[in-house]
Protein backbone atom coordinates (compact mmCIF):
# COMPACT_ATOMS: atom_id res chain seq x y z
CA UNK A 1 0.00 0.00 0.00
CA UNK A 2 1.20 3.50 -0.85
CA UNK A 3 2.21 5.34 2.32
CA UNK A 4 1.18 8.94 1.84
CA UNK A 5 2.54 10.08 5.17
CA UNK A 6 5.92 8.54 4.59
CA UNK A 7 6.09 10.05 1.14
CA UNK A 8 5.24 13.44 2.56
CA UNK A 9 7.89 13.19 5.28
CA UNK A 10 10.42 12.19 2.70
CA UNK A 11 9.55 15.19 0.58
CA UNK A 12 9.65 17.52 3.54
CA UNK A 13 13.01 16.28 4.73
CA UNK A 14 14.42 16.49 1.29
CA UNK A 15 13.28 20.11 1.13
CA UNK A 16 14.82 20.85 4.47
CA UNK A 17 18.06 19.27 3.48
CA UNK A 18 18.08 21.28 0.28
CA UNK A 19 17.77 24.64 2.03
CA UNK A 20 21.32 25.84 2.27
CA UNK A 21 21.25 28.37 5.10
CA UNK A 22 24.84 29.43 4.48
CA UNK A 23 23.85 30.42 0.96
CA UNK A 24 20.87 32.39 2.24
CA UNK A 25 22.99 34.24 4.80
CA UNK A 26 25.67 34.98 2.25
CA UNK A 27 23.34 36.46 -0.33
CA UNK A 28 20.71 38.09 1.90
CA UNK A 29 22.58 41.46 1.92
CA UNK A 30 22.60 41.39 -1.86
CA UNK A 31 18.84 40.92 -1.89
CA UNK A 32 18.51 43.71 0.65
CA UNK A 33 20.46 46.10 -1.58
CA UNK A 34 18.36 45.09 -4.58
CA UNK A 35 15.21 45.55 -2.53
CA UNK A 36 16.29 49.09 -1.63
CA UNK A 37 16.71 49.86 -5.32
CA UNK A 38 13.33 48.31 -6.18
CA UNK A 39 11.62 50.29 -3.42
CA UNK A 40 13.30 53.58 -4.40
CA UNK A 41 12.40 53.19 -8.06
CA UNK A 42 8.85 52.15 -7.20
CA UNK A 43 8.39 55.04 -4.77
CA UNK A 44 9.65 57.64 -7.24
CA UNK A 45 7.61 56.19 -10.10
CA UNK A 46 4.42 55.89 -8.06
CA UNK A 47 4.64 59.41 -6.62
CA UNK A 48 5.05 60.77 -10.15
CA UNK A 49 2.20 58.54 -11.35
CA UNK A 50 -0.09 59.98 -8.67
CA UNK A 51 0.79 63.55 -9.67
CA UNK A 52 0.39 62.80 -13.37
CA UNK A 53 -2.84 60.90 -12.76
CA UNK A 54 -4.30 63.70 -10.64
CA UNK A 55 -3.44 66.29 -13.28
CA UNK A 56 -5.04 64.19 -16.02
CA UNK A 57 -8.13 63.52 -13.91
CA UNK A 58 -8.60 67.25 -13.18
CA UNK A 59 -8.09 68.13 -16.85
CA UNK A 60 -10.68 65.59 -17.90
CA UNK A 61 -13.11 66.46 -15.10
CA UNK A 62 -13.07 70.17 -15.92
CA UNK A 63 -13.01 69.45 -19.66
CA UNK A 64 -10.02 71.72 -20.33
CA UNK A 65 -10.02 72.29 -24.10
CA UNK A 66 -7.30 70.53 -26.15
CA UNK A 67 -5.57 69.19 -23.03
CA UNK A 68 -8.49 66.87 -22.30
CA UNK A 69 -7.89 65.14 -25.63
CA UNK A 70 -4.16 64.82 -24.94
CA UNK A 71 -4.92 63.37 -21.50
CA UNK A 72 -7.50 60.97 -22.92
CA UNK A 73 -5.06 59.73 -25.56
CA UNK A 74 -2.30 59.33 -23.01
CA UNK A 75 -4.51 57.36 -20.62
CA UNK A 76 -5.49 54.91 -23.34
CA UNK A 77 -1.90 54.40 -24.51
CA UNK A 78 -0.49 53.96 -21.03
CA UNK A 79 -3.15 51.51 -19.91
CA UNK A 80 -3.19 49.44 -23.05
CA UNK A 81 0.51 48.76 -23.60
CA UNK A 82 2.76 46.54 -21.47
CA UNK A 83 5.37 48.15 -19.23
CA UNK A 84 8.06 46.04 -20.85
CA UNK A 85 7.34 47.57 -24.26
CA UNK A 86 7.22 51.07 -22.73
CA UNK A 87 10.64 50.48 -21.18
CA UNK A 88 12.09 49.12 -24.43
CA UNK A 89 10.85 52.25 -26.15
CA UNK A 90 12.41 54.55 -23.55
CA UNK A 91 15.70 52.61 -23.26
CA UNK A 92 16.38 51.47 -26.80
CA UNK A 93 13.89 53.34 -28.99
CA UNK A 94 14.80 56.84 -27.90
CA UNK A 95 18.52 56.32 -28.56
CA UNK A 96 17.64 56.16 -32.26
CA UNK A 97 16.60 59.78 -32.17
CA UNK A 98 19.61 60.69 -30.07
CA UNK A 99 18.04 60.63 -26.60
CA UNK A 100 20.02 58.54 -24.16
CA UNK A 101 18.27 57.85 -20.91
CA UNK A 102 19.94 56.16 -17.98
CA UNK A 103 18.39 52.93 -16.77
CA UNK A 104 17.22 54.53 -13.51
CA UNK A 105 15.54 57.39 -15.37
CA UNK A 106 13.89 54.97 -17.78
CA UNK A 107 12.54 52.86 -14.95
CA UNK A 108 11.04 55.82 -13.09
CA UNK A 109 9.64 57.48 -16.20
CA UNK A 110 8.28 54.17 -17.46
CA UNK A 111 6.55 53.35 -14.18
CA UNK A 112 5.13 56.87 -13.94
CA UNK A 113 3.90 56.64 -17.53
CA UNK A 114 2.16 53.34 -16.91
CA UNK A 115 0.81 54.29 -13.48
CA UNK A 116 -0.38 57.76 -14.51
CA UNK A 117 -3.11 56.30 -16.67
CA UNK A 118 -4.38 54.01 -13.94
CA UNK A 119 -4.20 56.71 -11.26
CA UNK A 120 -6.05 59.13 -13.57
CA UNK A 121 -8.97 56.73 -13.78
CA UNK A 122 -8.97 56.22 -10.01
CA UNK A 123 -9.05 59.98 -9.33
CA UNK A 124 -11.65 60.59 -12.03
CA UNK A 125 -14.01 58.13 -10.38
CA UNK A 126 -13.36 59.93 -7.08
CA UNK A 127 -14.00 63.40 -8.52
CA UNK A 128 -17.20 62.26 -10.18
CA UNK A 129 -18.43 60.92 -6.86
CA UNK A 130 -18.36 64.42 -5.32
CA UNK A 131 -21.99 65.49 -5.34
CA UNK A 132 -23.34 68.57 -7.07
CA UNK A 133 -24.69 69.71 -3.68
CA UNK A 134 -21.24 69.64 -2.09
CA UNK A 135 -19.84 71.74 -4.93
CA UNK A 136 -22.66 74.27 -4.76
CA UNK A 137 -22.31 74.51 -1.00
CA UNK A 138 -18.60 75.18 -1.38
CA UNK A 139 -19.31 77.87 -3.94
CA UNK A 140 -22.01 79.45 -1.80
CA UNK A 141 -19.58 80.07 1.06
CA UNK A 142 -17.48 82.06 -1.35
CA UNK A 143 -14.68 79.63 -2.15
CA UNK A 144 -12.81 80.26 -5.38
CA UNK A 145 -12.55 77.37 -7.80
CA UNK A 146 -9.05 76.57 -6.63
CA UNK A 147 -10.11 76.57 -2.97
CA UNK A 148 -13.14 74.46 -3.83
CA UNK A 149 -10.93 71.83 -5.47
CA UNK A 150 -8.42 71.82 -2.66
CA UNK A 151 -10.62 71.87 0.42
CA UNK A 152 -13.85 70.24 -0.73
CA UNK A 153 -13.41 68.17 -3.88
CA UNK A 154 -9.99 66.56 -3.52
CA UNK A 155 -10.39 65.28 0.06
CA UNK A 156 -13.70 63.66 -0.87
CA UNK A 157 -12.45 62.37 -4.22
CA UNK A 158 -9.37 60.95 -2.53
CA UNK A 159 -11.47 59.11 0.05
CA UNK A 160 -13.51 57.46 -2.68
CA UNK A 161 -10.41 56.68 -4.75
CA UNK A 162 -8.32 55.13 -1.97
CA UNK A 163 -9.20 51.48 -2.71
CA UNK A 164 -8.34 51.97 -6.40
CA UNK A 165 -5.17 53.91 -5.59
CA UNK A 166 -4.16 51.13 -3.21
CA UNK A 167 -4.71 48.45 -5.86
CA UNK A 168 -2.78 50.51 -8.43
CA UNK A 169 0.12 51.05 -6.05
CA UNK A 170 0.47 47.34 -5.36
CA UNK A 171 0.12 46.54 -9.05
CA UNK A 172 2.86 49.06 -9.91
CA UNK A 173 5.18 47.70 -7.23
CA UNK A 174 4.84 44.26 -8.76
CA UNK A 175 5.41 45.68 -12.24
CA UNK A 176 8.89 46.79 -11.14
CA UNK A 177 9.91 43.16 -11.64
CA UNK A 178 10.49 43.85 -15.35
CA UNK A 179 13.17 46.49 -14.64
CA UNK A 180 15.89 43.84 -15.01
CA UNK A 181 15.38 43.90 -18.79
CA UNK A 182 17.03 47.32 -18.90
CA UNK A 183 19.95 46.05 -16.84
CA UNK A 184 18.97 47.48 -13.45
CA UNK A 185 20.24 45.41 -10.51
CA UNK A 186 16.83 44.98 -8.89
CA UNK A 187 15.49 41.90 -7.12
CA UNK A 188 14.73 39.91 -10.25
CA UNK A 189 18.11 40.79 -11.77
CA UNK A 190 19.97 39.53 -8.70
CA UNK A 191 17.83 36.39 -8.61
CA UNK A 192 18.44 35.65 -12.28
CA UNK A 193 22.17 35.97 -11.68
CA UNK A 194 22.12 33.52 -8.79
CA UNK A 195 19.91 31.05 -10.64
CA UNK A 196 22.70 30.54 -13.13
CA UNK A 197 24.75 29.01 -10.30
CA UNK A 198 22.00 26.67 -9.13
CA UNK A 199 20.44 27.05 -5.65
CA UNK A 200 17.06 27.69 -7.26
CA UNK A 201 15.11 26.84 -4.08
CA UNK A 202 16.90 29.38 -1.88
CA UNK A 203 16.94 32.04 -4.57
CA UNK A 204 13.24 31.76 -5.32
CA UNK A 205 12.42 31.75 -1.63
CA UNK A 206 14.48 34.90 -1.03
CA UNK A 207 12.84 36.57 -4.04
CA UNK A 208 9.32 35.84 -2.83
CA UNK A 209 10.12 36.88 0.74
CA UNK A 210 11.73 40.11 -0.49
CA UNK A 211 8.65 41.11 -2.50
CA UNK A 212 6.36 40.17 0.37
CA UNK A 213 8.39 42.26 2.80
CA UNK A 214 8.14 45.24 0.48
CA UNK A 215 4.53 45.01 -0.60
CA UNK A 216 2.76 43.63 2.45
CA UNK A 217 3.40 46.73 4.62
CA UNK A 218 2.11 48.94 1.81
CA UNK A 219 -1.03 46.83 1.66
CA UNK A 220 -1.53 47.10 5.39
CA UNK A 221 -0.97 50.85 5.48
CA UNK A 222 -3.56 51.37 2.77
CA UNK A 223 -6.18 49.24 4.49
CA UNK A 224 -5.62 51.20 7.72
CA UNK A 225 -5.99 54.43 5.76
CA UNK A 226 -9.20 53.16 4.21
CA UNK A 227 -10.65 52.29 7.58
CA UNK A 228 -9.69 55.66 9.03
CA UNK A 229 -11.35 57.50 6.20
CA UNK A 230 -14.51 55.46 6.60
CA UNK A 231 -14.60 56.09 10.32
CA UNK A 232 -14.46 59.82 9.74
CA UNK A 233 -17.98 59.45 8.35
CA UNK A 234 -17.38 60.41 4.76
CA UNK A 235 -20.63 58.84 3.80
CA UNK A 236 -22.54 61.72 5.24
Amino acid at each position, binding site marked *: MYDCAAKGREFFHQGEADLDSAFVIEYAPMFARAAVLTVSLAAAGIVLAVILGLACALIRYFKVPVLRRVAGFYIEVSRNTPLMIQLFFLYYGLTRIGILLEGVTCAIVGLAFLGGGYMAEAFRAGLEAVSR*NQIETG*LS*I*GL*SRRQLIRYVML*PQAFAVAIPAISANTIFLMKETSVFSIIALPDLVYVAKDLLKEGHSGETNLMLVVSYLMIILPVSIIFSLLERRVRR*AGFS*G
Partner: protein
Amino acid sequence: MPCRTVLNIIDLHKRYGQLEVLHGVSLEVKKGQVLVVVGPSGCGKSTLLRCINGLEPIDSGNIELNGGSITDGKTRWNLVRQKIGMVFQSYDLFPHMTVMENILLGPLKAQGRNRAEVEHEAEELLERVGLLDRRDSWPGQLSGGQKQRVAIVRALCMQPEIMLFDEVTASLDPEMVREVLDVMLELARRGMTMIIVTHEMAFAKAVADRVIFMDAGVIVESAPPDQFFENPASERARKFLNIFQFTGVTKEEQTDEKNGSN
Protein backbone atom coordinates in the same frame (compact mmCIF):
# COMPACT_ATOMS: atom_id res chain seq x y z
CA MET B 1 -39.20 100.36 9.60
CA PRO B 2 -36.48 99.11 7.23
CA CYS B 3 -35.02 101.67 4.92
CA ARG B 4 -31.88 100.83 2.90
CA THR B 5 -32.34 98.49 -0.05
CA VAL B 6 -30.08 95.46 0.23
CA LEU B 7 -31.26 93.47 -2.76
CA ASN B 8 -33.07 94.69 -5.84
CA ILE B 9 -34.19 92.34 -8.59
CA ILE B 10 -35.46 93.90 -11.79
CA ASP B 11 -37.34 91.98 -14.48
CA LEU B 12 -35.46 88.70 -14.04
CA HIS B 13 -35.84 86.07 -16.75
CA LYS B 14 -34.47 82.54 -16.56
CA ARG B 15 -34.90 79.77 -19.09
CA TYR B 16 -33.93 76.11 -19.13
CA GLY B 17 -33.93 75.39 -22.84
CA GLN B 18 -37.48 76.08 -24.02
CA LEU B 19 -38.91 76.23 -20.52
CA GLU B 20 -39.06 79.71 -19.03
CA VAL B 21 -38.79 79.22 -15.28
CA LEU B 22 -38.71 82.88 -14.24
CA HIS B 23 -40.85 85.15 -16.31
CA GLY B 24 -39.98 88.70 -15.35
CA VAL B 25 -39.55 88.74 -11.58
CA SER B 26 -38.98 92.04 -9.78
CA LEU B 27 -38.38 92.20 -6.06
CA GLU B 28 -36.91 94.59 -3.52
CA VAL B 29 -35.56 93.59 -0.12
CA LYS B 30 -34.81 96.27 2.49
CA LYS B 31 -32.34 95.89 5.29
CA GLY B 32 -33.74 93.83 8.14
CA GLN B 33 -36.71 92.68 6.11
CA VAL B 34 -37.86 89.06 6.12
CA LEU B 35 -39.38 87.96 2.84
CA VAL B 36 -41.11 84.61 2.65
CA VAL B 37 -41.62 83.13 -0.80
CA VAL B 38 -44.38 80.53 -1.16
CA GLY B 39 -45.95 78.79 -4.11
CA PRO B 40 -46.54 75.41 -5.71
CA SER B 41 -43.49 73.32 -6.54
CA GLY B 42 -42.01 74.20 -9.90
CA CYS B 43 -43.13 77.81 -9.59
CA GLY B 44 -39.54 79.05 -9.74
CA LYS B 45 -38.94 80.01 -6.11
CA SER B 46 -35.83 77.87 -5.67
CA THR B 47 -34.49 79.01 -9.03
CA LEU B 48 -34.97 82.60 -7.89
CA LEU B 49 -32.69 82.00 -4.87
CA ARG B 50 -30.13 80.18 -7.02
CA CYS B 51 -30.03 83.11 -9.44
CA ILE B 52 -29.41 85.56 -6.59
CA ASN B 53 -26.16 83.88 -5.60
CA GLY B 54 -25.11 83.00 -9.10
CA LEU B 55 -25.57 79.24 -9.02
CA GLU B 56 -27.77 79.73 -12.09
CA PRO B 57 -26.80 82.26 -14.75
CA ILE B 58 -29.72 84.53 -15.65
CA ASP B 59 -30.96 85.20 -19.17
CA SER B 60 -32.00 88.81 -18.78
CA GLY B 61 -32.83 91.36 -16.14
CA ASN B 62 -30.70 92.74 -13.35
CA ILE B 63 -29.85 91.91 -9.76
CA GLU B 64 -28.37 94.60 -7.55
CA LEU B 65 -26.72 93.98 -4.19
CA ASN B 66 -26.27 97.15 -2.12
CA GLY B 67 -26.91 99.24 -5.21
CA GLY B 68 -24.29 97.57 -7.44
CA SER B 69 -25.24 95.19 -10.22
CA ILE B 70 -24.04 91.62 -9.74
CA THR B 71 -25.33 90.39 -13.08
CA ASP B 72 -23.47 92.70 -15.46
CA GLY B 73 -21.07 89.95 -16.52
CA LYS B 74 -18.12 91.35 -14.56
CA THR B 75 -19.15 89.76 -11.29
CA ARG B 76 -16.54 87.91 -9.26
CA TRP B 77 -19.05 85.54 -7.79
CA ASN B 78 -16.79 84.16 -5.10
CA LEU B 79 -16.62 87.66 -3.58
CA VAL B 80 -20.35 88.36 -3.98
CA ARG B 81 -21.30 85.02 -2.45
CA GLN B 82 -19.42 85.94 0.71
CA LYS B 83 -22.10 88.58 1.30
CA ILE B 84 -24.97 86.21 0.52
CA GLY B 85 -25.47 83.32 2.95
CA MET B 86 -27.31 80.37 1.52
CA VAL B 87 -28.74 77.34 3.29
CA PHE B 88 -29.99 74.38 1.27
CA GLN B 89 -32.65 71.74 1.83
CA SER B 90 -30.10 68.93 2.15
CA TYR B 91 -27.80 70.77 4.66
CA ASP B 92 -24.67 69.56 2.83
CA LEU B 93 -22.12 69.80 5.59
CA PHE B 94 -18.69 68.79 4.34
CA PRO B 95 -18.50 65.18 5.57
CA HIS B 96 -14.70 65.17 5.83
CA MET B 97 -14.63 68.06 8.29
CA THR B 98 -15.77 68.46 11.89
CA VAL B 99 -18.51 70.92 12.76
CA MET B 100 -15.97 73.61 13.62
CA GLU B 101 -13.91 73.01 10.47
CA ASN B 102 -17.07 73.27 8.39
CA ILE B 103 -17.82 76.66 9.90
CA LEU B 104 -14.26 78.00 9.69
CA LEU B 105 -13.56 77.03 6.07
CA GLY B 106 -15.27 80.02 4.44
CA PRO B 107 -14.15 82.74 6.86
CA LEU B 108 -10.52 81.51 6.96
CA LYS B 109 -9.91 80.48 3.36
CA ALA B 110 -12.34 82.55 1.30
CA GLN B 111 -12.28 85.68 3.47
CA GLY B 112 -8.80 85.32 4.89
CA ARG B 113 -9.86 86.36 8.37
CA ASN B 114 -8.03 85.89 11.64
CA ARG B 115 -8.49 82.40 13.11
CA ALA B 116 -8.86 83.37 16.76
CA GLU B 117 -11.46 85.99 15.96
CA VAL B 118 -13.50 83.71 13.69
CA GLU B 119 -13.32 80.80 16.10
CA HIS B 120 -14.65 83.03 18.87
CA GLU B 121 -17.51 84.13 16.64
CA ALA B 122 -18.22 80.54 15.59
CA GLU B 123 -18.43 79.47 19.23
CA GLU B 124 -20.88 82.26 20.01
CA LEU B 125 -23.05 81.26 17.07
CA LEU B 126 -22.95 77.58 18.02
CA GLU B 127 -23.93 78.55 21.54
CA ARG B 128 -26.90 80.47 20.17
CA VAL B 129 -28.19 77.44 18.24
CA GLY B 130 -27.47 75.14 21.21
CA LEU B 131 -24.70 73.11 19.60
CA LEU B 132 -21.51 74.34 21.22
CA ASP B 133 -20.93 70.88 22.71
CA ARG B 134 -20.91 69.40 19.19
CA ARG B 135 -18.12 71.63 17.88
CA ASP B 136 -15.75 68.70 17.34
CA SER B 137 -18.34 66.20 16.11
CA TRP B 138 -18.39 64.81 12.60
CA PRO B 139 -21.46 65.56 10.48
CA GLY B 140 -22.26 61.83 10.37
CA GLN B 141 -22.80 61.91 14.13
CA LEU B 142 -25.46 64.63 14.02
CA SER B 143 -29.22 64.47 13.49
CA GLY B 144 -30.80 66.21 10.52
CA GLY B 145 -31.94 69.14 12.60
CA GLN B 146 -28.49 69.54 14.14
CA LYS B 147 -26.84 69.42 10.73
CA GLN B 148 -29.16 72.08 9.43
CA ARG B 149 -28.45 74.34 12.42
CA VAL B 150 -24.73 73.92 11.80
CA ALA B 151 -25.30 74.76 8.12
CA ILE B 152 -27.03 77.97 9.21
CA VAL B 153 -24.14 78.85 11.53
CA ARG B 154 -21.68 78.14 8.71
CA ALA B 155 -23.48 80.64 6.49
CA LEU B 156 -23.84 83.20 9.31
CA CYS B 157 -20.17 83.08 10.21
CA MET B 158 -19.40 84.67 6.84
CA GLN B 159 -21.17 87.79 8.20
CA PRO B 160 -23.48 87.99 5.19
CA GLU B 161 -25.65 90.98 4.27
CA ILE B 162 -28.55 88.70 3.45
CA MET B 163 -29.47 85.08 4.11
CA LEU B 164 -31.28 82.84 1.64
CA PHE B 165 -33.10 79.75 2.92
CA ASP B 166 -34.19 77.19 0.35
CA GLU B 167 -36.80 74.89 1.93
CA VAL B 168 -34.45 74.19 4.80
CA THR B 169 -36.90 72.07 6.77
CA ALA B 170 -38.31 70.09 3.85
CA SER B 171 -36.20 66.98 4.42
CA LEU B 172 -36.33 67.00 8.22
CA ASP B 173 -38.34 64.73 10.47
CA PRO B 174 -41.29 66.69 11.93
CA GLU B 175 -39.89 66.85 15.46
CA MET B 176 -36.71 68.50 14.17
CA VAL B 177 -38.43 71.13 12.09
CA ARG B 178 -39.17 73.33 15.07
CA GLU B 179 -35.58 73.59 16.32
CA VAL B 180 -34.48 74.88 12.91
CA LEU B 181 -37.39 77.28 12.54
CA ASP B 182 -36.69 78.67 16.01
CA VAL B 183 -33.15 79.51 14.96
CA MET B 184 -34.52 81.36 11.94
CA LEU B 185 -37.08 83.21 14.04
CA GLU B 186 -34.36 84.37 16.38
CA LEU B 187 -32.32 85.55 13.41
CA ALA B 188 -35.28 87.55 12.17
CA ARG B 189 -35.70 89.15 15.60
CA ARG B 190 -32.07 90.21 15.54
CA GLY B 191 -32.70 92.07 12.30
CA MET B 192 -31.11 89.76 9.72
CA THR B 193 -32.24 90.39 6.17
CA MET B 194 -33.68 87.14 4.85
CA ILE B 195 -35.44 85.53 1.93
CA ILE B 196 -37.09 82.28 2.98
CA VAL B 197 -38.57 79.74 0.62
CA THR B 198 -40.78 77.42 2.65
CA HIS B 199 -43.87 75.27 2.79
CA GLU B 200 -44.33 75.84 6.52
CA MET B 201 -47.29 78.21 6.35
CA ALA B 202 -47.67 78.80 10.09
CA PHE B 203 -44.01 79.69 10.28
CA ALA B 204 -44.30 81.94 7.24
CA LYS B 205 -47.11 83.82 8.92
CA ALA B 206 -45.09 84.26 12.08
CA VAL B 207 -41.78 85.32 10.59
CA ALA B 208 -42.60 87.23 7.41
CA ASP B 209 -42.65 90.98 6.96
CA ARG B 210 -43.96 90.33 3.49
CA VAL B 211 -45.16 87.20 1.73
CA ILE B 212 -44.44 86.68 -1.95
CA PHE B 213 -46.68 84.23 -3.74
CA MET B 214 -45.22 82.85 -6.94
CA ASP B 215 -46.80 80.69 -9.60
CA ALA B 216 -45.58 79.70 -13.05
CA GLY B 217 -42.50 81.90 -12.88
CA VAL B 218 -44.15 85.16 -11.90
CA ILE B 219 -44.94 86.94 -8.65
CA VAL B 220 -48.70 86.71 -8.38
CA GLU B 221 -49.06 88.43 -5.06
CA SER B 222 -46.91 90.37 -2.62
CA ALA B 223 -48.59 91.26 0.64
CA PRO B 224 -48.11 91.50 4.42
CA PRO B 225 -48.66 88.06 6.00
CA ASP B 226 -51.98 88.86 7.71
CA GLN B 227 -53.49 90.10 4.52
CA PHE B 228 -52.09 87.24 2.41
CA PHE B 229 -53.17 84.42 4.70
CA GLU B 230 -56.55 85.88 5.78
CA ASN B 231 -57.61 87.45 2.58
CA PRO B 232 -55.52 86.62 -0.49
CA ALA B 233 -56.24 88.87 -3.43
CA SER B 234 -55.86 86.34 -6.22
CA GLU B 235 -57.81 83.18 -6.98
CA ARG B 236 -54.54 81.27 -7.50
CA ALA B 237 -53.29 82.15 -4.02
CA ARG B 238 -56.63 81.16 -2.49
CA LYS B 239 -56.45 77.76 -4.21
CA PHE B 240 -52.87 77.29 -3.08
CA LEU B 241 -53.67 78.10 0.54
CA ASN B 242 -56.61 75.68 0.47
CA ILE B 243 -54.11 72.84 0.03
CA PHE B 244 -53.01 73.45 3.59
CA GLN B 245 -56.59 73.41 4.98
CA PHE B 246 -57.72 70.10 6.41
CA THR B 247 -60.38 70.78 9.01
CA GLY B 248 -63.46 70.94 6.77
CA VAL B 249 -62.44 68.00 4.64
CA THR B 250 -61.85 65.62 7.51
CA LYS B 251 -65.18 66.29 9.25
CA GLU B 252 -67.23 65.70 6.14
CA GLU B 253 -65.53 62.42 5.34
CA GLN B 254 -65.95 61.15 8.90
CA THR B 255 -69.64 62.04 8.79
CA ASP B 256 -70.03 60.18 5.53
CA GLU B 257 -68.39 57.09 6.93
CA LYS B 258 -70.64 57.10 9.95
CA ASN B 259 -73.69 57.43 7.78
CA GLY B 260 -72.50 54.58 5.60
CA SER B 261 -71.89 52.20 8.48
CA ASN B 262 -75.23 52.90 10.06
